Structures are given as C-alpha cells and as structure tokens.
C-alpha cells in the first residue's frame, strides 16, 4: 500500500519529466532538402514588342492616370519623349508639364502619389545621400517640370498599371531629346565616372551648359556633357 502511494506520487512527476524530455528531443531530424520551389517572378523581357510612337491621346491618358488633373502639358504634347529611362526593360514617357491652376496644394502634398525631385539638387550615387531630399522639393506656380511615367510590362507606360511617376525640376532645357543609353556611351566613349547609367537618357541643358538627365536608380539627376562633346544625331 505504501509502495502504491509512493508510486502514485512519483508517477505524475515522472510523466511530466518524460513529456519535457520527449518535447526537447522531438525534432532530432535534419532539415530536409528543400522541395523544388516554383520559379520566382520573371522580369519582363526588354522591349519584346515594338511599340508605336506616342499619340496625343496616349500621352494625355498616361499623364491623367499618373497625375490626375494636377498638371497639363507645357507647350503641347508634341514634346513627349519615350525611352527606357529607368532601365527596367519597359518603355517610359517623359513630358514637360505645368501645374494646373489651383492644384498646387495637391501637387505638393507629402502623401501624393508622385515624387517631386530637382535634377540639379543631388549628387550622383557614390557621393552620399543627397541634400535635396532632406527638404522636400516643392512645385511653384510658374514651374515647368519634366513629368516621367515609368512603364510596366510589355505595354510600357500605356499599361493601365503604369503609375510610378515623377515630377522633375530643372530637366526641361533644350534640346530635350531622348537618346538610347548606347548612343550616349558612343558619344562620351565611357560612362562618366560619377554617373550610374542604368537606362536611356534625356539630353537637356541646364542654363547654358549641355548635359543629360538620367535615372540613378533612386531619382532623376542631371549630368553635364564633356566640354568637347558633339551633338548626338537623332
């Protein structure tokens, strides 16, 4: 009887100890060789489809989709430029625009769906975080800005999903022409040491200095052309 009582007292504790021991050792197995994962998402093939030149309607629609009614083309839609400016293989569009009357507050809203940048404000990557981003760049009534809408997939900036967009100050100087990255590389012989060219460029002067606007990977920035540079034939 005494032994049975003792057993009755010990058994529950023994069971607890066993349970914990079993739990501790329950893994014991080696991590299995991973099952073959399904293929990761594939980036769209670059320019798989030859896209037609932009029409007035296309550009208006592209701007409206990205910016709503906050901007309108400055000097007509004939100045719209296309190219793969951010180097993702999808066609983008760039158009000089002016702020629509009465829309400045909306344009400069800190939670707006576009990013406002100044092409002259920041150094290229490799020179540290830009000064310009610290104080927000704002749109002024008289500004003429370069509106850029990044493309998505094979339809590029015409795709309904293409909404990533930028308003860039100091990026609309003459001649305002898009050039493939390869053209620029032929022209300047090699990539300027302080520019990270990932896509096509936009030739645009800043004041009287010829240069080009390019995507750094995070923003649009202006870079001067070498002084002995010759104009690139379209």
């Amino acid at each position, binding site marked *: 009887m005494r032994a049975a009582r003792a057993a009755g007292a010990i058994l529950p504790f023994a069971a607890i100890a066993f349970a914990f021991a079993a739990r501790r050792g329950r893994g014991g197995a080696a991590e299995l060789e991973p099952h073959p994962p399904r293929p990761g998402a594939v980036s769209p093939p670059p320019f798989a489809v030859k896209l037609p030149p932009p029409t007035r309607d296309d550009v208006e629609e592209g701007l409206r989709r990205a910016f709503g009614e906050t901007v309108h083309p400055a000097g007509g839609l004939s100045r719209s430029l296309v190219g793969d400016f951010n180097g993702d293989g999808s066609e983008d569009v760039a158009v000089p625009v002016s702020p629509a009357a009465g829309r400045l507050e909306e344009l400069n809203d800190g*939670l707006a769906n576009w990013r406002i940048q100044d092409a002259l404000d920041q150094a290229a990557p490799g020179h540290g975080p830009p000064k310009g981003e610290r104080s927000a760049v704002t749109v002024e009534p008289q500004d003429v800005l370069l509106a850029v809408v990044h493309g998505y997939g094979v339809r590029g900036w015409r795709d309904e999903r293409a909404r*990533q967009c930028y308003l860039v100050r100091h990026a609309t100087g003459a001649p305002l022409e898009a050039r493939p990255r390869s053209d620029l590389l032929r022209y300047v012989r090699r990539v300027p040491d302080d520019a990270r060219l990932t896509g096509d460029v936009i030739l645009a002067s800043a004041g009287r200095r010829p240069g080009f606007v390019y995507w750094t990977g995070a923003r649009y920035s202006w870079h001067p052309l070498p002084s002995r540079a010759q104009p690139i034939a379209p």
Partner: protein
Amino acid sequence: MRTLRLSFLGVAVAAFVLPAAFSDTPAEAPTGFDSLTNGFTPQTQFDADRGVFEEREGIADGLGPVYNAQSCAECHQNPVTGAISQVTEVRAGHFDGVNFVDHPGGSLINDRAIDASIQERVLGGNEVRTFRTSLNTLGDGFVEAIDSNTLVGIANGQPSGMRGQFIQVPVLEAGGLVRGGRFGWKNQHASLISFSADAYLNEMGITSPLQPTENTSNGNSTAAFDTVPDPDNDGTDVEAFARFMRATKAPPRDAALAATPDAQAGSQLFDQVGCNICHVRNITTAPSGTVINRGAFTVPPELGNKLIHPFGDFLLHNVGTGDGIVQNGGQSTRNKVRTAPLWGMRTRGRLMHDGEMLNRNETILRHAGEATGVINNYRSLTTAQKNQLIVFLNSL
C-alpha cells in the same frame, strides 16, 4: 495523507503541463531592445559575446589591409548592439548587357585601408554602383532556425508575378554544402557562422579559418601590408559573433503606438493593400532538435518552435529598385534584393537597400516591378488611410 496531497498536486500539475508540453503551438519569440539574452546562452556568456562583438580591432589584431570598420558594433549598434545604423557599404561592377561582372577585386569596395596607397575606389568602367545599408542582426538566431522548406512554402504561396526567389548558398562550416539563403541583402548566407566569417573578412579585413584569404585592393595584392599571418583569428571570434546573434531577442514593437486606433487601422490596411504578401507577418521556426546548417547546428529549445514577426519573407524580389549586383544567387538575381524585414523599422531614418529614401511615403512609392499591383493599391488609399498605414509602419 502527505503522500496523497503530493499525488494530487502531481496529477493537477500534469493536467496543466502535459498538454502544453505536447502542444505544437509555437511560443512567441522574446523581443526587446534591452541587451538581454533570449535564453540561448546565459546572460554572462551573452555579455561576454557582446563584448567581443563591440571590440575595436587594430592592425595587430589583423585589421585590414582594406576594411570598412573596426568593430561589428560600428555598423550594428542602433539602438542597442546588434541592431542597425546609418552606415553603408559600397558595391560596384559592370553590366555588359547580359551579365554583371565584378569590379576588379570583387564588388565590395572597402572604404578604409591601413595604408593610403592601397585605398580602394570605384574604377572607371564600373557603372553599376550601389550603397548597402547595415542590416539588423537582432533576432537572427530565430531566422537561422527557420526551416528552408518554410521559405519555399512562403514563395510557393505568393502570386506568380510576385513569387520570391529562393536560393541555396554554401554553408562554409559544412564544407560548402548548400542551404536556403536568408542573411544579407542578396540572401548570400544561410548560417550565422558563415555570415560572421564573411563579415569579419569583408568588413574588418580579419581572416579566420573559414575565410582565410585577405581581400585585394582593387584587385591588387595587399600582402605587403599584411603584417599578421593568416588566419588573423583562430575562429573563436567568429563563434562568439554567431553565439551573440543567436542569443539576441527579436526587435520589439512600439507597444504604445501599436495600440493606437490609427496603427491598428494601418495594420489592417497593410494586409488589405497586399504589403503582407512579401512583408510576411508570422513565421514559425523549426522544432527544437532539428539539425540545420547541413549538420553544423541543432536548433535549441530557446530558438525552436518560436513564432516571429519579421515582416519579411527572406526571399529575393525585383521591386524595381535595381541594385544590379550579383553575389551568390547567379545572374537572375542581379536586380533582386531580399525583402527588407520591417521589424525594428522605426529605428531607421534612411530606408531601402541604399538608404536613399528619407520618408515612408517615398519609400513605398519607390517600389515597382513585382510590387506594382500592391503599390497601386496603396495609391488608391485616401490621405488619412496612408497616414494610418505609416503610423503602423512607425510602430514596427
């Protein structure tokens, strides 16, 4: 009578404890910015390992010849040792139109050298350049303890246009056998020992048995400046770094902010918009006793079967931010980076892989590529809703 009481007590305790012991319900992983151990090591060991992590190395310890910092804690310090900082490193190379080609001497361009004549710089013709911000290491023991198949399962559950890429990378301490990568911006490491040995060499210039060869300076030998025979360290420091990281708690939420109505509404919007497809909220680590790192480590009870909230999937995605660098994952990973785990995000002022984004809204809008649909959902939110989402992010 006393035996009876004991027996009754034993049965009562067993009734409560046994179900818990056999339950598969994961326990919440401990969190805190408090420099206290998660239990993997005793506090005294944790403090000693943290001391090694914080130690400033000099030339006599093997520092350099080229390096980025004198101590792990120089880059992993805010708000406590092991976390993040604003410090970035530079990577560079060339894209020939088809493939990424490493910069001479490797894509990492060290910012410091023990002699001015071997200072590295980005050479002309290497137009692919990027900064990489310092990553958080708090809670990395739990991340290491995630079964690779869990990561594969997360990827397989993502929509095809957003499916993360799972890569397998060498585990140095297992003779180079591979395991699912999860550490570093390119998922270039799968184990904390491998990660530590890599960082000791590449960030501090200190060789160890797993990484015994000094880096070059832009491809040129630095042997003439290397006064300490290799390996500079016998590997004990690498083990201390890994042990420290394994014993850290995961980054905690800002509980007060998280409890606000705005943060709670923002939390729902986070899921509603689809951010949680890649910034995965909940992951459970492998059961204790599981042998991982190709046999080199066994998950202890303190790290096993724990529920963590990394807000990341530890997979590679192309979200249009470039990077352009290839490390362990092959050319298909050139423009992909690991989803940034958002735990501890409120301690960062500079965001994304290059630290170039300075506010939350711009950071969100910079996402493109695979994230396009999700970001378009964000764009359709009202200003008030966007603010709520940002309040939620600030609680992480």
